[in-house]
């Protein structure tokens, strides 16, 4: 364990794959409920709110894990633009994971609606009721969710590019193994 690790810490990998599933599910649930007037709208909303709060809690744990464990370095021969793209997209992913649940929570608060995670679990309001603010937050929630989806697609494409084309160990650093 003297050199750089080749793999992410087991906890980091567990959180990555768990959250990958949750976030992709969340993006589809959100897009589906916003485009439905059927009963789906209702049961998707009932999934969306607690799942969003779970993601918010997990991303905080994940940031702690990220800063308290060592990350495998990117390959030395990776072109600079790809290094920059990797760093920027990860920053964006973490930022959006953190911001989207907070926006959802704040927008429900700004609408003056009780923030209910179930029929009886209620969270406090993040902001006071304010309809124009609701409109801004609700639009930001939608647009940034699309940005997150595009970033996830880019992340997926880049991971497969590392795994199938460059074959440089970057994909394996997240899929598994022990140092």
């Amino acid at each position, binding site marked *: 364990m003297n050199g750089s690790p080749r793999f992410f810490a087991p906890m980091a990998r567990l959180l990555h794959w768990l959250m990958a599933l949750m976030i992709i599910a969340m993006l589809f649930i959100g897009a589906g409920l916003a485009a439905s007037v059927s009963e789906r709208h209702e049961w998707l909303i009932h999934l969306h709110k607690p799942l969003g709060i779970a993601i918010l809690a997990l991303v905080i744990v994940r940031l702690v894990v990220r800063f308290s464990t060592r990350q495998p370095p990117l390959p030395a021969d990776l072109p600079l633009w790809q290094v920059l793209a990797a760093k920027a997209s990860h920053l964006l992913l973490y930022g959006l994971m953190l911001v989207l649940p907070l926006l959802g929570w704040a927008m429900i608060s700004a609408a003056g609606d009780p923030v209910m995670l179930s029929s009886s679990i209620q969270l406090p309001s993040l902001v006071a009721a304010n309809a124009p603010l609701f409109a801004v937050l609700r639009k930001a929630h939608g647009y940034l969710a699309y940005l997150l989806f595009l970033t996830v*697609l880019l992340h997926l494409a880049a991971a497969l590019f590392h795994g199938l084309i460059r074959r440089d160990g970057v994909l394996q650093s997240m899929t598994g193994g022990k140092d």
Partner: protein
Amino acid sequence: MVDHSSPPRPPLSTASLIARLVGIGAVVAVVAGAFAYVNGTLDPQRLRPKTLVNALETNNGVHPGLRRNHAKGVCVAGYFESSAEARAYSSAQVFSEAKTPVIGRFALPSGNPYAPDSSVPLRSFALQFSQANGQQWRTGMNSMPVFPVGTPEAFYQMLKAGAPDPATGKPNPANMPAFFASHPETAPFLAWVKTAKPSASYATETYNGINAFYLVSADGQRQAVRWGVVPQSQDAPGDSAPAGNDFLEKDLVQRLASGPLRWQLNMTLANSGDPVDDASKAWTGSHKVINVGTLVLQSSQPQADGDCRDINFDPLILPSGIEASNDPLLAARSAAYASSYLRRAGEVSPLHSAPQESKP
């Protein structure tokens, strides 16, 4: 573990490289395609919240800052005094506390904010009960006993039948009768509307929740109900809607100036066999009706800057102890109201922009 320390990387053949790039592209395309299906882009026939709200805007015009339906209204405030009768059926705090504050809104069921009060024989009443525990109960009620249709799809077809013909700017007069003829579920509503006439006052109307809900008791028993409020005020004999476009709000302000207005909140308990998922069907025969309390209204405010203005009376904002039924109109109302609310919340209403700016 296999040692990966120096993975051999023989160059890919051109064919292999292309196959792998195509494979990556295919994975990304499948995920993006699935997403585009779910969000409706690849499924344009799907009825979406914005489809309904766009149809309302087509029929009524766009009136910035105002509700896309039930656009003309007035805010009211008061409280609800519970009786003991609902407590056995529902654990909601609104029925266990003596008093719960209420904000409400009376309105004309039309998307045109300038519609004359006598233009429709219907009035609506929306309420928000704010429980002490922070949970809320919102409901939107109408003076009719049943809804014309039972599904959002049929409601959309009805809106389309009322859409202006681009050639004349007015709805084709043959469309609405044709819609009713092809939708026999509208018969109970049509039978009622024949006898209905525009009332002279908001205060003398009965308002019905129409959609069914479940009262849920502390031990988990569910009882399907339809609720409604019955006025204690009554029309003087022979009272009918006066001339003029805007008599309802004036009447309400006048009546409140001389004292609070009261309604009794009733819950009709479903018999087995009553349709709980179809708001176009009446519950016929004898039913147990419980009087769950008295609604007392004490004051009103113009809607342009009243407390009800920024409330979305989403019928699925319910406290613990009241649950939605499977009536498909409930989810559709919730989804469409959210879309209408987002539009108007992001707009500045010409009705209240000036007074708003003069406030600190």
